[in-house]
């Protein structure tokens, strides 16, 4: 049995340890927002947070993250309770096919959690691991700037970036 804490909820799973975290989250926990794109850590569609840092979960064996805190797009917000980043995404009509956007939002959220006023260069550096085949890059960049300007400067910012995580016990 492998223990995982996903979006603040603890799970015990009977799964082979070399199974990538992505497939555990998608098919065992039925959280389908994180996507499979390349299986090689090249496109970022599978991005989740591990202890707050963005990781490529298609190449991360679940055994390597046992007992640690995982955040998925479902932990960022819901249609009824959008995070600041998600609000900006909707405002800028960012998605086209939308398949990469969960991963894009995970990377953008991780960036803003550590750098609340990123420059264009900061955004390029943080986001260039996430491919968008539809080419929505100009809007992603604009949406990150909008989200940054909408974020509170107070300690409340974290709640605005993550609206759907259970308090970790």
């Amino acid at each position, binding site marked *: 049995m492998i223990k995982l804490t996903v979006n603040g909820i603890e799970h015990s799973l009977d799964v082979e340890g070399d199974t990538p975290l992505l497939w555990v989250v998608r098919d065992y926990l039925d959280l389908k927002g994180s*996507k*499979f794109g*390349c299986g090689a850590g090249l496109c970022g569609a599978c991005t989740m947070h591990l202890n707050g840092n963005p990781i490529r979960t298609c190449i991360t064996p679940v055994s390597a993250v046992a007992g640690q805190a995982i955040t998925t797009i479902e932990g960022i917000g819901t249609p009824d309770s959008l995070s600041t980043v998600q609000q900006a995404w909707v405002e800028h009509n960012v998605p*086209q*096919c939308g398949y990469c*956007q969960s991963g894009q939002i995970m990377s953008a959220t991780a960036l803003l959690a550590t750098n609340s006023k990123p420059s264009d260069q900061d955004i390029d550096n943080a986001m*260039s691991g996430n491919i968008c085949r539809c*080419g929505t890059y100009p809007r992603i960049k604009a949406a990150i700037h909008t989200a940054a300007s909408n974020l509170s400067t107070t300690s409340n910012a974290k709640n605005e970036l993550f609206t759907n995580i259970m308090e970790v016990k």
Partner: protein
Amino acid sequence: MTSLTTPANKSLTTTRRNFLKATSMGTGGLMMSIALPGCTTLKNGGISQAGNTEQWNSNAWLRIDSDNSIHFVLDRVEMGQGTYTGMTSLLAEELEVDPEKVQVSFAGVDSIYRNTIYGIQITGGSTSVASSWQIVREAGAATRIMLIKAAANTWNINEKDCIAENGRVINKASGHKNYDQQIPFGQLAAIAATYSVPSDIPLKDKADFKIIGKYNKRLDALKKATGTADYGIDTELPGMKYAVFTRAGRWDSQIKTFDASKIKNMPGIEQVFAVKTASAMGIAIVAKSYWQARKAQQQLTVKWHESELNNVDDASIFAQYKSDLAADSGKNVRSEGDFDDALENAIQTITAEFEMPFLAHSTLEPQNCVAWAKPDGLEIWAPTQSPDMAQVAAAKATDYALSDVKINTTFIGGGFGRRINQDFVAEAAAISEISQQPIKLIWSREEDTQRDWYRPSSYHKLSATIDKNGDISGWNHQMAGSGVFDYFVADAAPAQYPFMPKFMFGLLENAGKMGEGIIAPADGSIYEGAEAIPYDFANINVDYKKSDSGILVGNWRSVGYSHNGFITETFIDQLAQLPSIRAQKKDSYQFRYDLLKNHPRAQAVLKLAAEKANWGTPLAGCTQGISIHKSFGTWVAEVADVKIENNTIKVKRVVCAVDCGQVINPDMVIAQMEGGINFALTAALYGEITIKEGIPQQTNFHDYQLLRMNEAPQIDVHIIDSDEKPTGVGEPGVPPLAAAVANAISAKTGQRFYKLPLKLDA
């Protein structure tokens, strides 16, 4: 968005107005459906009832329930191009509702949902809005008229004193904003359903539009920003298993032997068996989880027979194109004046040869399909651009009759034409039938890249003649390459005749191939855009020689325009640099502008792009290139500001002007131009699938690179205000881009480009 050759002889207009039908529902709702007289449907087994000219279909477009909910069946798939928003906006405009209040679902297979341009149910060719512009609005307008009538009868007042607004009918006679006198649509639906559809359905004038041309929201953005949009790969069924499928490197290879002894006892493995479909033979592994199946695949050994493709590589393919074209110039697709005459009288002739590569689609959602073979039927959930072709493919791959195959469509993680070919559906159907349980087939990225239906490679030979005045007197463009039609007709032809028994499918395929250009649309996948060269030359000749490479090919966002936009617009740029043209004090902008004198819309687009880009005044350190191309009825001009840094091409800015007729959603047009430009920039900088011993060599994003954010230019889009009927936007942003970038580099270094991707001279 995406990708089909547009048949020139098919009109965009439809005359289905008389076939709208209102039906009341037991729950007190109203359903608007469309009937085609004398047509056959899958539902009744394709039997056309004698004497009955109308067969009402219960699976139709618009439903208003008594609880005020409005349901709209979207008959074009949403793969990023914005049909979900655009089509809903058309409906909402005439119905007088908030587009956000409309609940959208994806259509199953039915002849009523056929694309009026292609005769099959397909999302491609940038046609969704163009082919639905009239009929969807009419459905909305007719419904509104009937709801108003219902309210007027309820209040016993004149219909003229009623208006529909925001999902309700208001009694204007009682004072416009008097909320005592209003009835929500839902409460009127039951009454309205008893009326017949009005024979005269006036549509709104442009001046009265509230949504069309103004609405700027994207209806699926909320789902896609929260990970709650369901794509094909997200489909879950009770008891579902996961399958992976091992194919040969050469698509036509057959299995000699395979050894699954190492994997049969691996965890979770349930079944291993051979499967053959129309385009693949291979070994399926069915397991409890995806990872178990994928891991086991590494332990599988398969020996393949040699195939006809064993000795095929890029060099042999291009040698074949050249020798085929030299032996026979093929079909003449444009002839004006007499090019030979121009050649004879020329004082100079400029020639160039172009070689265009195979390109992969690389949809970010890999090919996948869920299939459930049940005793009484086969049900499919697939991210497909053509549900009725998927139905044919699934039936062909199994023992099920066509009418026993049900197709469900989903959100699509990128199409770009890839999902017009239904191989992934055929595979899943066959695997589920053998496995006798519901399965989800997921392709790896490597499988997706190596087993694509590529944009065909092609060879082009161009000549331009200069007359004694120094002007261009003649233009000759000859080309060779595979036609994509041959590679999807097998599923497309039977989809048009769903009442034909399965044993006739092969006959239909052959009839379709032989009837290409006669009963089926002409296949312009190599020459489209080239034959329509818009410049005012007295003598023009364009020939296409079909020369099949044997490599799987398909529609790739903007199809033939994708390469012809580059070829014609770099060659014209080369001509603009000729001393005789320079002597006329024309730069590459003015040269084009003057030669476009018969195309005022093109001139306006070119001028707007040049003005907005400050043509002649590049960004710091950059040079500029310009290009214009018409595809899918839409003119697009692009100006690229390009810099060379460390011998690397850096595109700093692209300014784009577009004339796509009446705009439905301006922001969606801008988004499609942005996306098309970045999609095309990937191809211009990186795109190339190479073939060795019949096997595509690229596998994943490390060797088939896609543009990333740090490489993406600033993009400024400007839309021409137009009252013309709407034309495509999903693809037309693509064709001009590579030429604009290449021309900018040429302006800096003098290097000319005859191949893609763009590679700088050392």
